[in-house]
């Protein structure tokens, strides 16, 4: 049973059907890819999963519970975290504070015992590789590092599932490779990862399964090998390259 499931969700903007009966799922300890050309509906799908966009049809299931009517902030508390394609960092805070504020938020609603949040945040900063810029304000660091800050912030809520929206754009090749390793490490720790990414090499390298979205519908689901071979995928997406 996957931890997070979208069941036949549909979203319409005016007359435009952004998502039509889309089903995706993410399992614990696995990295699941969600790929597709620009405008295919990937970010809309993420917005539905995280509760920022109410769907016109379909259900969202988390840990066997129907959370379709659960507001976004409560989904966060259930253990769902995400990053954004257009970066949403706390620009006036430092990188460390970005992570700390997330840990503090989690600590507040989880009403857990008093723990050393600073140490916890420092561990995350080291894990993600932001040590050098930890004390800089986020609005003064490069885009790639801002994206990593978003990831670090998401990790501070101790999520069971993370939705990553193009996390590697803005990273150079070496950084991308290190980022892939980081994702694998997180998956090993049992986190379910749903990955939207334009870097196809990265997706093929780290994902266990891949969903392909085109014009708001899922046209293929499978392992990286299967997806590479799929004719419709080649036509709709990979053929472009």
């Amino acid at each position, binding site marked *: 049973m996957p931890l997070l499931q979208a069941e036949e969700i549909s979203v319409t903007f005016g007359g435009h059907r952004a998502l039509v009966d889309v089903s995706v799922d993410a399992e614990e300890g696995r990295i699941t890819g969600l790929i597709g050309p620009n405008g295919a509906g990937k970010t809309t799908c993420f917005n539905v999963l995280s509760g*920022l966009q109410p769907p016109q049809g379909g259900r969202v299931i988390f840990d066997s519970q129907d959370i379709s009517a659960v507001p976004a902030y*409560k989904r966060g508390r259930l253990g769902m975290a995400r990053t954004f394609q257009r970066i*949403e960092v*706390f620009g006036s805070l430092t990188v460390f504070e970005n992570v700390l504020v997330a840990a*503090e*938020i989690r600590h507040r609603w989880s009403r857990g015992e008093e723990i050393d949040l600073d140490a916890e945040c420092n561990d995350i900063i080291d894990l993600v590789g932001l040590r050098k810029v930890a004390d800089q304000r986020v609005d003064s660091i490069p885009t790639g590092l801002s994206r990593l800050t978003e990831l670090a*912030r998401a990790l501070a809520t101790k999520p069971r599932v993370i939705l990553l929206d193009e996390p590697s754009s803005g990273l150079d090749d070496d950084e991308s490779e290190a980022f892939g390793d980081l994702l694998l490490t997180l998956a090993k720790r049992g986190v379910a990862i749903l990955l939207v990414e334009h870097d196809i090499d990265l997706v093929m390298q780290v994902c266990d399964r891949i969903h392909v979205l085109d014009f708001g519908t899922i046209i293929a689901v499978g392992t990286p090998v299967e997806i590479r071979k799929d004719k419709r995928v080649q036509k709709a997406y990979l053929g472009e390259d």
Partner: protein
Amino acid sequence: MKDLLAFTVIGIVTGSVYAIAASGLVLTYTTSGIFNFAHGGIGMLMAFTYWEFRFHHHWPAPLALFVVVFVIAPALGALIERVLMRNLHGRSTGTSLVVTIGLMVMLMGIAQGIWPPAARPFPEFYSGHGVTIFGIFVTTHQIITIIVAGLAALIFWYLLNRTRTGVAMRAVVDDRNLAALNGVSPARVSMLSWALGSSLAALAGILIAPALNLEILNLTLLVVVAYAAAVVGKLKSLPLTFAGAMILGLLTSYLSLSWVHAEKIPGLPGALPTIMLFACLLLLPEERLRVGRITSERGPRVPSLGESLQGGILLVVGAIVVSLVLSDANLVRVGQGMALALVMLSLVVLMGYGGQISLAQMTFVGMGAFAMARFGLGGSPLGLLMAPLLAAPIGALVALPALRLQGLYLALATMAFGVAAENMLFPRAWLFGSSTRVVPRLHLFGVHFDGEKSFFVLLAIVFSLFGIGVLALRRGRFGRLVSAMRDSPAACTTLGVNLLTTRLAVFTLSAAMAGFAGAFYGGLRGSAQTNDFLMFQSLPLLLMAVIGGITTVSGALVGGLLLGLLQTQSSTGVLAGLVFLFTGAAAVSLGRNPHGVAFYISQKLEPLKDKVPWFRPEEPDEPLTEELPRIAAAAG
């Protein structure tokens, strides 16, 4: 029955004027994304201009009307769009709000400068003429008003639905960038809509001026009625806005029916737009969080505890020195600034840290002053305790319906609340009534702060303590959370933050702080009455806080002292007009930089810090006196 018919006609006429004003507001808002608080101000200035041509220079009415509505007003609108509004696109609601409110205050200053208060007869069109329909005498002016509103509606419908320009306008509303890619110039469309909106404001102003006695403030506040009507159409739909305007016009008119007994609730007509606005706010669906906003501008570093303590001590020592040097009369003036600075601290928390807007801060100050007057007899600290306790729950109640929606609605709701409070709440006999209440000064631990010197030093101590407290708040968990929420509400939500309760907490805290400051503000003045806490007084407060620097404690101090000085130097006539003009102009030019004068000064003084080891830029008195002549010179 005849009464009902007569008041229906009057209601439709009033509704027509509201509809003209409101449709102009909606038009500019939808095409440029900027909500124009100066809409009523433009109508006011144009009504005065019409009066000047028509009754001072005795131009024929059609000529004066043509020149004002079709030449000057659109030119003014286009100018405003080109100079002030165009580069506001994509900025935060707070920034564009400060700029349009600055413009509103500036226009009032211009009007007051050119046309100082005096009786200016402004007869209706074809005064005395009319026809009798079903036994009811309808004046020609009323008929003209209804026809103009109908024509405006028709022309609008045709323009938006049947012309290329209209399609371009609607395209820009839907997606500015996409429209640009398809060969539409968003800048030109936006300029055109501001020109049109401005014409409509002029028309509404001229039509309603006879009823409002050509009075600056009342005409300017037409914007409150206009947006109350526009909220019915969610600030977007023109037909619904028309309907809202008609409902408002009819309701206002029916209140005059003898069997309605509206006189039992004094001030109800003035508060009607507010009531309608709040009713609509409750019905509006919750906002969808927008993703992909601009990030915050780079702001000043938050001072450490040590630095803020140093700043506080310096301020108190400075205040003691000042209290020994200045005469009592001058101390009251500076004290007024200090008390206003204390009020502005509440805006630093709300707007500077939280990114939320309140246009009713003086209303909360009034509640604090009332609490001190009522419960602080003999200077009892109970009054001081009751001040925030009274202001906070009312603040929470006012903010709650608007906080589910985007930031603009909070500005609209608080402004409307301020208007309702001055009409319905404060004039109540158990509150201020029509008289003046004595507000005592604090008596604590056997010490009386009745004297001007001691009260001034007390004000400085209180400001310092609150400043240190506000900075501690900013450095702590709550401050981080509030800053995070300002920078990205969407990210906060996904982290598990309930935006509504957090925003409510910030607004309630801010209202409580303003109420607390009100106890001192009232104490300084010694008395309080309804007219001390009009909604309009919240606007210069906000603008000057932005000019001083809304994101810093030192900014509040600079802003407060500046406002205090300006207020006590001039209270009437041309000089007051200049003060408005200066405040508005400074806010318009500084509105883009929320860190204000204080930040500018501290940056300039940064190199000094190394040379003078004990010096900190938080120290307020010196930079202010240095800076004043420069600002004065800049303002001309």
